[in-house]
Structure formats: C-alpha cells, structure tokens
C-alpha cells in the first residue's frame, strides 16, 4: 500500500503525455501559484530528499570516522568541527538523519496499520514535519 502511495502522488512531475491519454480535452491547471502539495506529499518528498542527501553524505561520514580513530586525526576532526561551516554541515546532516528516521518510524507504524486513514495520514505527516523541526532545533542548540 505504501509503495502504491509513493508512486502515485508525485504525478505532477510526470510527463504530461502520459496523463493526456486519459482525456485530451480535460481542463489543465499549470498555474504554479495555485498548485499546492498536500501535507502528506510534503512529508513524503522531504523523506526522499533527505534520503538522497544522506546517501551523498556517506563518504564524508566515513572519512570523518576513519580520521577520528587515530590520535592525531581525532584532534584534527575536533578542531575542524569547531569551524562555522563544518558545524553547519554537521547540523544539516544530523537534522536530515533525524527527519529521515522520524518519517521512517511513521512508515513502520503505518505498516502496522496505525494512521492509515486520510485523517490519520494527514495527522501523521504533520506530526513528522513538526517533530523534524523540533529535533533540528534541539540539534542546533547541542552543536552551537
């Protein structure tokens, strides 16, 4: 059920020719100012975006881990981590990880049948975004 949901609700990005087969004369709204993603789409696309960015951050994390396991490297990682830009990057990676985990836990709950209704889905998506923002704020406090 989740797979179906993921595949269908980003239909706005699909080639319009795919959609037009259904009805060539239907009214078309391409005014971006009036197209609005529902909260469920926003939480889902954020899950995807954070996933892709976390994937790209794997080598950076492995490099930091490798460096941190030697005495000189540990000191180097510590000193690099005190820099503003590196702090920001660390915060961004950890915040994305927190959001991705929270959104993933929601997926597991929905797999167990919790929050599968339309209202439950909206509430879950909204909660995931709120918890994601809260954890990003807490991580910011911890890092700075």
């Amino acid at each position, binding site marked *: 059920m989740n797979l179906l949901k993921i595949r269908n609700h980003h239909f706005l990005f699909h080639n319009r020719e795919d959609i037009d087969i259904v009805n060539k004369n239907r009214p078309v709204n391409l005014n971006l100012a009036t197209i609005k993603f529902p909260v469920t789409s926003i939480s889902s696309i954020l899950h995807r975006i954070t996933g892709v960015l976390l994937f790209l951050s794997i080598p950076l994390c492995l490099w930091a881990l490798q460096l941190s*396991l030697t005495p000189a490297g540990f000191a180097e990682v510590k000193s690099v981590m005190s820099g503003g830009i590196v702090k920001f990057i660390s915060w961004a990676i950890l915040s994305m990880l927190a959001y991705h985990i929270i959104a993933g836990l929601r997926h597991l709950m929905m797999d167990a049948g919790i929050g599968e209704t339309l209202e439950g889905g909206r509430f879950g998506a909204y909660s995931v975004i709120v918890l994601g923002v809260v954890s990003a704020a807490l991580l910011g406090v911890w890092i700075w």
Partner: protein
Amino acid sequence: MVTSATSLGRSGLHDWIIQRVTAVVLAAYVIYLTGFLFSADAIEYNVWRSLFGQVWFKIFSLLAIASICFHAWIGMWIVSTDYIKPTGLRMVFQVFVILFCLACLIWGAQILWSV
C-alpha cells in the same frame, strides 16, 4: 522483469522487507550511539577508540554500514525509477549507485578492522 534487474531484492516485496529490516538496524545503531555520546562525560580519543575497539561494536557498526548500503541501494533505485525516464541513463545511474554502495561497504569494513 527487466525493470527490476538493478533492484536489490528483484521483487517489490523483497525490497520492502529489506528496507524495513535495515531501517530497524540503523535506528537501533543511531539510538545506541546517541545514548553513548550523552552518557559519557566527555568524548575524548581514548573513550572513542575503546568503543570501536570492542569486537561486538565492530560487528554492530559493520551491520549498520551494510544496512546503509542496502537501504540506500533500494531507496535510490525507487527514486531513480520515478524520476529518470530514459532507460539507458537510469541503468547507468543505478549501476553507479550500486558500485558506490558496495565501495562504501568495503571501505567501512577496512576502517572498522584497522582499529
């Protein structure tokens, strides 16, 4: 099916279950590491080094890195099948992702067992 030739489990159900098992491993690893970081007075080199010196933690860490690789493989496969329409380009992308994941797994094993 040709369309699933580059997916990890080669079936939606198989990918679905791998994605969840790896997610649980990763959540457990992140929770353990967070608990460790906050329970230690200060994270100094000796504390950090001795954490990674234990065999059980090496295994847990390698399981986590393997989980990242398979989780990312499946996740990137799903995303790429949705957004990259030309078959050739999508194949090249997916093969790149798979090699990238396996390279990270090998590198991770080398890092963990050099401690």
